[in-house]
């Protein structure tokens, strides 16, 4: 009996030992063996969640440190009904903040018979910052307030085409936001966060975006926009544009378009208005091109400032008759008179004497037919057909001389005039003055010469001729106390099968002061209804604008009595 009991005990002990060993083996297998990875993954799924850390997007300032683009949170607001304890209070607060019906909110929170409560109900997305902030301060149980990063443009529509916009997915489009999207975004961090308090979060590091300082002067930009808005209204124009460019550095001081858009509300309205007409669209520049043709003729020695030619009513080139705008012949005409009276026959004569090879070589050096390389997204190159291209005719050489049959962006025209104002050198147009990296390092953008199509002597000669032409015609572009050089343009708008007989583009490109040019200004008014000629629409706007511009740029007038302190 006793022996039998002892034997049973031994068997039981052996069995328990074996079971114990198996359990220990299993524990080791789970902890250190082949199942380890599986269980680690299972555990991670339980208490770790993947997170994407999107760093704050870099801010954008103007050249004087005025904030143009920053980040501000908007919020997604929802409720977890099962977690709400004080339904009445929560309904009161949400109703007040979100403007929702209180009874409707209460119905969402309280379970109805036979209905299953959803774990989460979305109430508002996006909700304004102030609403989210107020709700966060209320600390309501069961109310979920999640921030959604949003780009904010405090100046609203000011410089909107320069800045572009950022969509809800954090991608920048158009303008600076599009061109510098990578720099502004920074390095996105991907990792996982643990819900266990003493467990560290893991993942790749993130880095915030760079801050950009633009060449834009907000005061000049605002002046350009208000002047332009008024001009578009006064002339009944469809659209308009003013660009201010520093010919010595290539800095864009202002780039205004009308109409503009509010980048805070980029999703409202037609998407075509998001494009920047100064760089994203082209036009036939018209008579402003005559200044460039004259510069090339002088540069290649075809004419001198004192040369004359016999202006007949018409000239036939490449099988096409070229007429002056007034369909008149002007007889013996000087080069300055050619510019002052804006004679097509004269311009065509010059380009014809230059010949296609020299003319298009010079035009390419002026930057036509290729993008300027400005740091804005979506710049187009324009179209300049040269001999050998499909659709090139001999008549192109003649009509290109006065800005027809060739398309350019307004910025290309401004940069080309920049050469006339800057001793023949075209400076790289650029928008960013300085990039401030997150590590504190700074990248400064230095002025760069991109080409020199003409000599300083030629530039000086053309400048003198343009100034004399304006003064001889008592142009409405003149500014009291300042010597200005420039050229008007009245461009036809190409349509299928020819040109629009009714609508025109009036423009004026000028620079000054002539002795030491500090600005090039383009004014363009599209399809003005008051007058069709650029000399009557764009030129007066140029004068009005420059009269205020010189104050902002602190350029004394030439007859200014400068008081010398302490002298």
């Amino acid at each position: 009996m006793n022996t039998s009991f002892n034997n049973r005990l031994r068997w039981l002990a052996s069995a328990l030992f074996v079971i114990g060993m198996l359990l220990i083996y299993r524990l080791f297998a789970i902890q250190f063996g082949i199942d380890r990875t599986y269980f680690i993954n299972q555990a991670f799924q339980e208490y770790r969640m993947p997170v994407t850390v999107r760093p704050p997007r870099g801010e954008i300032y103007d050249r004087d440190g005025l904030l143009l683009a920053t980040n501000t949170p908007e919020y997604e607001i929802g409720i977890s009904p099962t977690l709400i304890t004080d339904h009445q209070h929560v309904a009161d607060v949400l109703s007040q903040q979100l403007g929702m019906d209180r009874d409707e909110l209460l119905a969402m929170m309280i379970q109805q018979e036979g209905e299953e409560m959803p774990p989460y109900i979305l109430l508002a997305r996006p909700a304004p910052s102030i609403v989210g902030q107020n709700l966060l301060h209320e600390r309501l149980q069961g109310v979920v307030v999640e921030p959604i990063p949003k780009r904010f443009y405090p100046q609203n529509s000011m410089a909107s085409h320069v800045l572009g916009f950022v969509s809800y997915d954090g991608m920048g489009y158009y303008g600076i936001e599009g061109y510098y999207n990578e720099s502004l975004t920074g390095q996105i961090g991907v990792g996982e966060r643990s819900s266990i308090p003493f467990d560290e979060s893991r993942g790749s590091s993130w880095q915030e975006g760079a801050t950009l300082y633009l060449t834009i002067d907000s005061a000049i930009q605002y002046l350009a926009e208000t002047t332009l808005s008024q001009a578009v209204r006064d002339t009944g124009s469809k659209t308009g544009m003013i660009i201010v460019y520093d010919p010595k550095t290539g800095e864009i001081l202002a780039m205004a378009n009308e109409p503009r858009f509010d980048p805070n509300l980029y999703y409202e309205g037609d998407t075509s208005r998001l494009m920047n007409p100064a760089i994203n669209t082209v036009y036939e520049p018209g008579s402003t091109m005559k200044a460039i043709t004259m510069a090339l003729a002088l540069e290649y020695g075809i004419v001198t400032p004192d040369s004359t030619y016999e202006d007949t009513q018409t000239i036939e080139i490449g099988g096409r008759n070229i007429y002056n705008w007034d369909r008149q012949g002007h007889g013996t005409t000087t080069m300055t008179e050619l510019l002052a009276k804006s004679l097509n026959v004269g311009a065509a004569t010059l380009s014809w004497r230059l010949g296609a090879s020299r003319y298009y070589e010079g035009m390419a050096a002026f930057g036509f037919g290729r993008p300027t390389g400005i740091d804005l997204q979506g710049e187009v190159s324009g179209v300049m057909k040269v001999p050998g291209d499909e659709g090139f005719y001999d008549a192109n050489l003649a009509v290109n001389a006065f800005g027809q049959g060739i398309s350019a962006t307004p910025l290309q025209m401004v940069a080309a005039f920049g050469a006339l104002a800057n001793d023949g050198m075209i400076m790289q147009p650029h928008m960013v003055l300085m990039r401030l990296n997150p590590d504190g390092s700074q990248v400064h953008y230095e002025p760069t010469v991109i080409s020199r199509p003409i000599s300083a002597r030629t530039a000086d000669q053309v400048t003198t001729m343009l100034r004399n032409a304006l003064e001889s015609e008592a142009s409405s572009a003149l500014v009291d106390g300042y010597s200005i050089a420039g050229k008007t343009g009245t461009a036809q708008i190409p349509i299928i099968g020819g040109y629009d007989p009714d609508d025109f583009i009036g423009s004026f490109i000028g620079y000054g002061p002539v002795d030491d040019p500090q600005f090039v200004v383009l004014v363009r008014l599209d399809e003005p209804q008051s007058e069709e000629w650029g000399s009557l629409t764009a030129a007066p706007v140029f004068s009005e604008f420059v009269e205020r511009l010189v104050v902002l740029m602190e350029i004394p007038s030439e007859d200014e009595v400068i008081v010398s302190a302490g002298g």
Partner: protein
Amino acid sequence: MAKKPDEHWLAHALREAPWRTQTKMTSFVLILIAILVLMGVLYMAQASRTATAGREVQVLEARRDLLQQENDYLRAEIAALRSIPRLIAEAERLGYHSASPAEIQYVTLPGVPEPPSFNPAEQQLLAEFNEALLADVTASPIDPDETLGSWLRDQTASFRQGLREFFVSSFSAGAGEESE
């Protein structure tokens, strides 16, 4: 029963009583358990403190995020309040208007550089200018100091110079004879 011949009285005296062995064993086990419990308690205390600290970190991180959001919001609001259209509207409301060229008088201050600007290129030029000015301050005819003190010094120096020249021109002949 006869006593075994090899069992010495001393061995007999030193033989441990069974109860003593059991007591020792029990004590050992109890000490072992106490050590294990102590280790457990220490581990739990440590883990608890770590968890508490971790939770505090989470709370602080949440607070930091909230403050960051508030900061972003306030920055945006300040920027909106400082926007050019608003400032101009406010200035006009207060009776100001944009200056025309005729209302501007330009004053040149010899040697005074332009005010500091955010333009980094201009700032660099300014720094170079100031450096050059400081390096060559004695040789430079430009005096950038335009304070009242410097004006008084200049006036005093000018007066002394005039006085000296007056005496030199008036008594130079006599002085020359004396020195010779």
